[in-house]
């Protein structure tokens, strides 16, 4: 499988979440992430409510659970490090002490840690569902439609396309290297890796020049043109407003309670 095939792997499923307009999904996901990150430490059940929302969306999207889990694993080092550090935070008073499997923990510190870890995990889950159920092209168009400068979205688009192409090229070079026998010794391996990197960089610059020529040949004058997107369906806009209102209401009720 080529590196660029890993992008948008599950973005074409026929689920209701996939069918939604990308701008609608982006607004809903942003609202949910903001609410998750703003959840006070003293309101852990609010996180449970958001987790339920996200799990319902995940189920509706049909995205494979294993694929989602793999993307969440990126948080593992942070969560593990924080958990290991927890026993080293002493309880501030007797009432704060919390016994867990014979280890004395600070209850306050543990709650803060659970809240921070939970918020990060849920925010990452929201982002994963958004990017998993939307093609990168549609997501870039949505970001542009919501006011992000066209140059920035164009550059991101180039990065997505050509980083993947570069990954494919690096993979082909590795295959070619392996097919010509094993390189023995760390020093020789490092030299080979350095020369491969230099070749990749040179090829990247040459390709960038060729792309620039192709753009100029089609009338590019320094400003990326944009196709204005069609309006999002009215029903989806209403649904998005309702979703954002529900998130805000849950947050407001939770904080007030």
């Amino acid at each position, binding site marked *: 499988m080529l590196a660029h095939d890993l992008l948008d792997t599950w973005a074409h499923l026929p689920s209701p979440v996939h069918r939604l307009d990308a701008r609608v999904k982006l607004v809903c996901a942003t609202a949910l992430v903001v609410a998750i990150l703003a959840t006070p430490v003293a309101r852990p059940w609010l996180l449970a409510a958001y987790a339920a929302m996200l799990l319902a969306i995940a189920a509706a999207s049909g995205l494979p659970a294993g694929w989602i889990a793999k993307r969440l694993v990126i948080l593992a080092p942070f969560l593990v490090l924080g958990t290991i550090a927890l026993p080293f935070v002493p309880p501030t008073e007797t009432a704060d002490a919390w016994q867990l499997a014979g280890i004395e923990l600070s209850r306050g510190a543990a709650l803060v840690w659970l809240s921070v870890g939970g918020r990060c995990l849920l925010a990452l889950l929201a982002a994963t569902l958004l990017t998993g159920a939307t093609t990168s092209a549609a997501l870039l168009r949505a970001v542009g439609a919501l006011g992000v400068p066209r140059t920035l979205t164009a550059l991101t688009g180039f990065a997505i396309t050509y980083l993947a192409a570069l990954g494919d090229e690096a993979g082909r070079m590795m295959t070619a290297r392996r097919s010509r026998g094993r390189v023995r010794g760390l020093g020789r391996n490092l030299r080979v890796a350095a020369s491969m990197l230099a070749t990749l960089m040179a090829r990247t610059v040459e390709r960038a020049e*060729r792309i620039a020529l192709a753009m100029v040949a*089609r009338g590019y004058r320094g400003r990326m*043109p944009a196709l204005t997107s069609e309006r999002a369906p009215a029903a989806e806009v209403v649904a998005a407003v309702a979703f954002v209102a529900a998130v805000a209401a849950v947050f407001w009720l939770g904080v007030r309670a």
Partner: protein
Amino acid sequence: MSLIAIDDLHFAWPDGTRALSGVSLTVEDGRSLGLIGRNGAGKSTLLLHLNGILHGWGAVRVQGRPVEDWPADDLRATIGLLFEDPEDQLFMPTVLEDVCFGPLNQGLAPDEARGRAMAVLDSVGAAELADRAPHHLSAGQMRRVALATVLAMQPRVLVIDEPVMALDPEGREEVIALLAGLPQTKIIASHDLEMVLALCDEVAILDAGRVPAQGPARELLADDALLRAHGLRLPPSLRNG
């Protein structure tokens, strides 16, 4: 008056490598010229002079007017340039956006550009690819979409660098049939002399930055001694008599 006239064109790259050393040739309106020659003969470099991307010493005239006197936008709308590697030609997130890139730069309204792009994609048999990411396409699909990106600018002249390179036989036949059906004046640089024979009225041989011969395709492509002298071989269909 020739549609394109090149007279004594010289060009050297910044590192001093001479790419063109006095190229002279002409292309008549509505005709197809095959530009053939060994690797490094200067074919791609010459093509980049036709729409003003490179500037050498000597004269390059389009419709009788020196290219340096053309407004860049008008020149690029007149001369459509199709690059050797379609991956370099396709850089937008979707096929539709890529095909719209040129028309939008020409000042078309988005709806108009979208309509033109869809019509062109349909004409090259790629309408169903409109929402796909260009880098996910097969080599043959990429070629057709790359051609659409140029046709969408409605050029009068198509300048094409190696249009069938790296295509399987079926894809090659499809692209040749597609190009044969286009009414534009064409300049096609290629090593595939069989394709040049099928598509071009005339041929110019480029060797070491010069054009030692230009003439009718059937005549030049049947001249074994001439082709061999410039590192080329007879196309298969003209071998053995």
